[in-house]
Every structure is written in C-alpha cells, then in structure tokens.
C-alpha cells in the first residue's frame, strides 16, 4: 500500500472504472464470471427487496381497505374490531404533518445557524470537537431520546406551556387546558432535536463548498461577516439546505419510538398544539399493534403504506434537488 493513495480531486459522481471492456463483458474466466454474478446478484436482490416491500404492503393493505366501511382517507376513527370495520388515516395524517412541521420550524433555522457557526463563526480549534458533538447527537438511539423526552423534557414543558398560553393563548393554537404537556408541540420539539444533526451535517458540507472567491468578492466590497453570508454563502447553499431539510423531514415523518413515548395519543384532532392528543402514522402502529387482530394488523399495514409513499416522495424530492445541484455546480466549475 506504499503506492500512491493520495487523492487530490474528488472522484467523478458516476463510477468510471478504468478497465478494458473485455474484462467487464467477456468474463471468460470462471472466477470473473462467478464474481460478477455474485455482485450483480446482490444489486438485483436489493431491487427485488424494494419491489417486494411495495407489493406485499400493497397486497395486505388492499385486504384491509376493501373491507373498510368508512373512507380510508377521511374517516376520523380507527375501529378495526367493529363488524364491519370502520377506520381512516385522517387523524394520523394530520398529526404526522403537524408534528413534522413543528420540528422543521424549530430545527431548520437552528441547524443552519449551527452549520454557519461551524463553517464561519467558531474559533478554528473548536470546529472539530463541535462537529463531533453534533455527530454524537446523531448516534444516540431514538428510544433513548424517547425516554429522555418522556421523563425529562415533558416535565420541563409545563412552564413554557403556561407562558405560551398566557401570552399566545388567544391564537387558539397555543391555548392550553392544563393537561400533561404530552402534546404535538412537545413531540415536535423532541423531533427537532433528533433531526438537527442530519440537517446540520448536510448544510455544513454545502456551506463548506462555497468558493472562497465569492466570499472574498463580498469582503472586498466592504461587507460585514453577516453580509458575506447573505451575499455569497446563503444563495450558493440554498438548494443544499432545502434538500438537507427534506432529508430531516423524512426522518421526522417516520419516527416511531420518540413519538410513542412522549405523546399521549387520542384518535381525534386537537386544534391547539399544547393540548395532548392526536397521533402519527408510526406512533399509531406501535401503540395499536399489540392488541390488534390479524385484520387490525392489515389495517395498520395500510397506514404504513401511506407513510411509506409519503417518505418516498419527500426523500425522492430531496435527492432530486441534490442531483440537480451537482449538475449545476459542475457546469459552472
């Protein structure tokens, strides 16, 4: 390994192995043929798994939905044991979207600020250790966040909730009837803490790629540090921050345990973020699963299928933005 292992240029995004074509196509030797077969087979297996997930979830979901007496999308109940069963995902969709929006509203500005802190503000010596702390946040298992959220965060929310109710209660969404603060706002705050690292890390990478010369151009015009960030850093990094946020959103949408431990669920919609109640797709599956009959499980699988499709769309959009950005910056390099 004394041979050159030093890389100066980032490798091209598309894998471009420099090999002669015969070795790829020909595979005349048995060893080559077996090895190619194994590696290609693994790749194909991955595709098969993805297809199987979609097919099986859809199949089991169709078993449940075909017997559903209510409208699967708009019904406000989850009575899978009734004859005939009557259930729908309206409450879950609402809760999932609301908790994720709260998480995004809190996490995105803070994560962008931390990313800027790491690239532009923190003393150089501190940057490494701080980035490490952020990685630690990412490594903590979600069930531990859930436990901490339920036993430490929830009691601390009483004060904040009272304050919000006193001053912003008139808006309706911040009114509080004094129940335990196991509500969508608490869930959103906990989710925000959990998705902070991924948004921070992706944004930091983007901000780090801002060409030095654009920042210097702004400096040379007499811009303050904040003005440099506004003129050169944020415009350059905007699409990257958007896709980072969507990756975080994908996490928040599908998070199960942290919601299941913190929320005290009800199968209805709360107008206020502070009053306990509501539910999310993932939390509902985890909470209802234990007592569910086989039909009940199929119904839960149906709700899981909706969650699957939503996260696919969100993640796909995030990846598409990243891919387009790569092309764009490549053309301009």
């Amino acid at each position, binding site marked *: 390994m004394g041979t050159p292992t030093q890389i100066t240029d980032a490798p091209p995004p598309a894998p471009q192995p420099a090999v002669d074509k015969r070795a790829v196509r020909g595979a005349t030797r048995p060893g080559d043929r077996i090895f190619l077969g194994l590696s290609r087979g693994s790749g194909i297996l991955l595709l098969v798994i993805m297809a199987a997930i979609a097919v099986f979830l859809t199949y089991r979901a169709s078993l449940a939905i075909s017997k559903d007496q209510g409208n699967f999308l708009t019904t406000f109940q989850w009575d899978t044991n009734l004859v005939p069963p009557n259930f729908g995902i309206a409450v879950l969709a609402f809760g999932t979207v609301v908790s994720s929006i709260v998480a995004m509203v809190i996490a995105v500005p803070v994560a962008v600020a931390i990313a800027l802190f790491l690239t532009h503000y923190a003393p*150089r010596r501190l940057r490494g250790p701080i980035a490490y702390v952020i990685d630690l946040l990412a490594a903590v298992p979600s069930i531990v966040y859930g436990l901490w959220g339920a036993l430490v965060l929830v009691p601390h929310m009483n004060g904040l909730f009272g304050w919000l109710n006193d001053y912003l209660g008139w808006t309706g969404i911040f009114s509080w009837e004094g129940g335990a603060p196991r509500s969508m706002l608490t869930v959103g705050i906990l989710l925000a803490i959990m998705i902070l690292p991924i948004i921070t890390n992706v944004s930091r990478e983007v901000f780090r790629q801002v*060409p030095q*010369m*654009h920042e*210097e*151009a*702004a*400096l*040379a*015009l*007499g*811009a*303050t540090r904040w*003005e440099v960030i506004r*003129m*050169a850093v944020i*415009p*350059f990094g905007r699409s990257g921050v958007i896709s980072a946020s969507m990756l975080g959103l994908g996490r928040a949408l599908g998070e199960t345990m942290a919601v299941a431990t913190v929320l005290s669920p009800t199968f209805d919609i709360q107008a206020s973020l502070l009053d306990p109640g509501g539910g999310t797709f993932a939390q509902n599956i985890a909470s209802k699963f234990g007592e569910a009959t086989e039909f009940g499980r199929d119904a839960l699988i149906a709700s899981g299928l909706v969650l699957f499709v939503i996260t696919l769309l969100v993640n796909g959009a995030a990846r598409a933005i990243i891919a387009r950005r790569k092309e764009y910056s490549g053309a*301009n390099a």
Partner: protein
Amino acid sequence: MAKRIDVSGLTAYYGSHKAIEDISMTVEPRSVTAFIGPSGCGKSTFLRTLNRMHEVTSGGRVEGKVLLDDEDLYGTGIDPVSVRREVGMVFQRPNPFPTMSIFDNVAAGLRLNGNYKKSELADIVERSLKGANLWNEVKDRLNKPGSGLSGGQQQRLCIARAIAVEPNVLLMDEPCSALDPISTLAIEDLIGELKERFTIVIVTHNMQQAARVSDRTAFFNLAAVGQPGKLIEIDDTERIFSNPSVQATEDYISGRFG
C-alpha cells in the same frame, strides 16, 4: 478621490510563517503601480495587506503601518470593513456572484452601504458599467446572470462592481491571468482610463503587461523557498525595464532567473 498609500516596515505572517518582511514603499495617487516577481515572493500577500484582506485567511497577521493619506489602516479603532470599502479589489479569477444578475452584481456593494432610490442605483450601475467598458455589451441583458458572460466580460463586470462604490484605491491581483489576449488588451486599456480617477496597484506575472500599463514598478524577490519575500526595488517603470539599479531585477527581467 484617489489617495496616496504609504507603507512602512510591513511584515505579514501566515501563522508562524513569515511571508513578507519589512516592506516600505509609497504609491502615488492617480498612477498605476505594478508588482512583479517570481511565484511565492509575496506580492499577492502584500497586495492583500493593503485592504486588510490578508487577515481573512487563517493565521493571517500583519505588523507595520499602511497609511492611506495619513491614516493608518492598522491603527486602533479602524474598522476593516470600512477599509475594504475604501480600497477596492479585483481578483485573479473573475468572481461575479453566480446567483445575481449583471445589474445586481454591480449594485451589490452600493446596496450594502446605503439606501439608494431605484433611479439613482440605475444611474450608478450604468456609469460603472460604462467606466468598465462593458455597458454596450450588456445593456440589453442587465437582468441576466453574470455567470453567462465570457471570462473577459466577467472580469470587467467585477471591475465595474469594484468601482461602483467609488473606492479611493483599486487593487488588482493578476486580473488578466485567466483571460485570452484580446480580453487582456481590453482590461489593459481600461486600466489606462481608470488611473485618471483611482490609485491603481496591479500584481502581474506578465512583464510586458507591467511595462505597458504601469507608471511605476516594484520588484519582489525571496532569497530561497521558505524565506520571506522582500521588496528589492521600486522605481519608474521605464527605469526598471531599461536600467534597474539592482542586479537581481535585471536578471529577472532579462529572463536569467526563475
């Protein structure tokens, strides 16, 4: 408008590495001064000390005095942001803001420094683009992104952006090294016009260019790699290129060196 620069005993560091040592010189207002010398001799570093851009790089540190009409840029209470507003800079590679239109690029510095009416802004942008000999080429597409221009046009856009805020001094760090000969000629002509209004300092690798555009020329050199760069001599350009007083300068100019 144009101001005199008086440098005395200036030393600059990158961390513990001394990049340039004990440089003293005077740059006359409304003139073009060229810095020449081999790679790594510190001429770009020195240029960047003149608008306090050197300290932006990590570990960058400066000792000594730079007087801009009797006011020390490194004195206590001096705001580096204001310094860079007074001493504009054009970089080696054209660097218009990629997300801004041509108009917004020129107006970028103005918008930082105050509220202008729309008409005022349009006037200044037009004047600056004319000043940079770019107006006729871009007047029909001011709202298009600046990155769509050719390299030479981009560099003139950057010059327009720099002169829009009416600085006292214009620093140019090898402004033509990334350009083709025709664009280079256009920039050189422009420098000749701009020196009527600004004090211009230009770093160049191209000695013919120094001879063509500058009134005075400073030659920088370093004793060995790793040693700090030093100012060898500064004199009228004609004299430097015909009859320099130091042997090293003559060696460099006649190509016997580096």
